[in-house]
């Protein structure tokens, strides 16, 4: 079958490419060179992806707002990020006299490096993972934790009130949602049985009929995904959780005093974090690189992975185009008083899911518990904060 082998080849295209390139080298160097190529691919692909995303975001937002968005620079405006990059490169680098120069310089680097490291454990296709580690998921979270430090460094070193306030907000927010992120991933690990992300994908890569066994299609998985999505948005400081950069109060938040390419690095870091967390969400709940329907299996796995990531990016953009921003206290209360308890509950539900065994019973029980909990907690929360729709009276 020509077509099958063609698609298999396509699926493995990167490996074939790597092997071909590495083939020119002496055998002793080959593994190292292979790794190097993989790294280069990551370091090249994701920033490129970032550039594209900025264009798509600006255009997509434009479309939501009844306008076109950038379309003049290069074909369809796709050179816009290039121009932005050149501009950022040649822009003067202002470092306030009172700032802490070294930390000010290191902060964007720390951000970019830690975010890049997170990509190492993401399986971006069948066997396409740079470092398949036994504790991959933990590694990912460990790297995510380090980004908080870079935000603190940026905010503190700028010696600017808005920056520091923004950084403090950012850290408070990120640590709150990081707990949620971790715990919602624990559910998946409980069923998937591994911290290795490629194993987790493998576990989901099977089908009943044509339908895949993605975790999002289980009650606990769906709930986990919703919580994960909320927490991921907060982790990456995207709207409606973009408080650290809350333009309406804090000017530009922790990077107020950054200019030139250092600012661009923050921008890059933020987007890369968005990609990596989307990738993680995809891996944990959306079956990673596996095809959505069994007969789509022939499509190369990496296409599915990137497709799913793109989809989640679109949702990020979509939310940004729609939602206003929360307030700090609401954000914190939401994290600790709604999302976290719900996630903990989800842990128990996941355990229940295992102990109830196969059958419709576990579907019914688990869904009922989760829906009831969501509705009840939402209702109670809204009641306690006294908000809800209102009706109005008129004077003639």
């Amino acid at each position, binding site marked *: 079958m020509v077509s099958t082998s063609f698609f298999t080849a396509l699926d493995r295209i990167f490996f074939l490419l790597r092997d071909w390139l590495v083939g020119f080298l002496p055998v002793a160097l080959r593994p*190292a060179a292979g*790794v*190097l190529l993989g*790294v280069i691919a*990551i370091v090249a692909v994701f*920033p490129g992806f970032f550039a594209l995303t900025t264009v798509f975001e600006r255009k997509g937002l434009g479309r939501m707002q009844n306008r076109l968005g950038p379309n003049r620079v290069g074909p369809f405006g796709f050179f816009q990020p290039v121009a932005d990059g050149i501009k950022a*490169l*040649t*822009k*003067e*680098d*202002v470092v*306030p*006299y*009172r700032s802490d120069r070294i930390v000010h310089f290191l902060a*964007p*680097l720390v951000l*970019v*490096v830690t975010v890049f*490291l997170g*990509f*190492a454990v993401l399986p971006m296709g069948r066997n396409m993972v*740079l*470092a*398949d*580690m036994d504790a991959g*998921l*933990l590694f990912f979270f460990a790297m995510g934790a380090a980004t908080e430090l870079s935000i603190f460094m940026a905010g503190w070193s*700028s*010696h*600017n*009130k*808005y920056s*520091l306030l923004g950084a*403090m907000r950012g850290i*408070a927010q990120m*640590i*709150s949602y*990081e*707990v949620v992120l*971790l*715990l919602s991933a*624990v559910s998946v*690990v*409980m*069923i998937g*049985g591994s*911290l290795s992300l490629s194993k987790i994908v493998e576990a989901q890569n099977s089908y009943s009929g044509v339908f895949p066994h993605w975790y999002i299609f289980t009650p606990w998985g769906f709930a986990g995904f919703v919580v994960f999505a909320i927490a991921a948005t907060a982790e990456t400081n995207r709207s409606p959780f973009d408080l650290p950069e809350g333009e309406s109060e804090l000017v530009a938040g922790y990077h*107020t*005093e950054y200019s030139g*390419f250092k600012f*661009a690095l923050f921008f890059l870091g933020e987007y890369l974090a968005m990609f990596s967390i989307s990738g993680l969400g995809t891996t944990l709940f959306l079956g990673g690189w596996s095809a959505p329907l069994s007969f789509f299996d022939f499509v190369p796995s990496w296409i599915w992975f990137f497709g799913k990531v793109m989809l989640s990016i679109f949702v990020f953009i979509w939310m940004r185009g729609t939602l206003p921003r929360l307030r700090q*206290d609401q954000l*914190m*209360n939401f994290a*600790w*008083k709604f999302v976290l308890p719900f996630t*903990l509950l989800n*842990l128990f539900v996941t355990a229940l899911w*295992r102990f109830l065994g196969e059958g419709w019973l576990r579907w019914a029980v688990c869904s009922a518990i989760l829906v009831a909990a969501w509705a009840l907690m939402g209702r109670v929360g809204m009641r306690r904060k006294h908000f809800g729709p209102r009706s109005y009276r008129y004077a003639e």
Partner: protein
Amino acid sequence: MASSPYFSLAVLFIAALGFGLAPLGLAWLWARMFSPPKPNATKNAIYECGLVSKGDAWVQFRSGYYLYAIIFLIFDVEAVFLLPFAVAFSGLSGAACAAMLIFVLLLIEGLAWAWAKGILTWA
């Protein structure tokens, strides 16, 4: 050596560092060659809405932040225990799970206590 996963991590680390440093170096070079930086007292002062910045930004913050950090720390540690448990979960007996349940419930109790104390209310 190259087969170790850490090797690829190290390479990635270096590459990422290079990725961050290279444009900064390029920008520095550009500034050296063509576009001289022009620092001056106003430009390099702290930005504050177009006014002269008053007071110190490094002020003392409120302990609310710290309280959240404590609870976060505890949950972080909890996750460190939960994750290996979760990995082993599918093969574990009910009793083992119960042991973990107790552990988790203990921490939840801490959370509930904090909630009741009103610490989880951001002021």
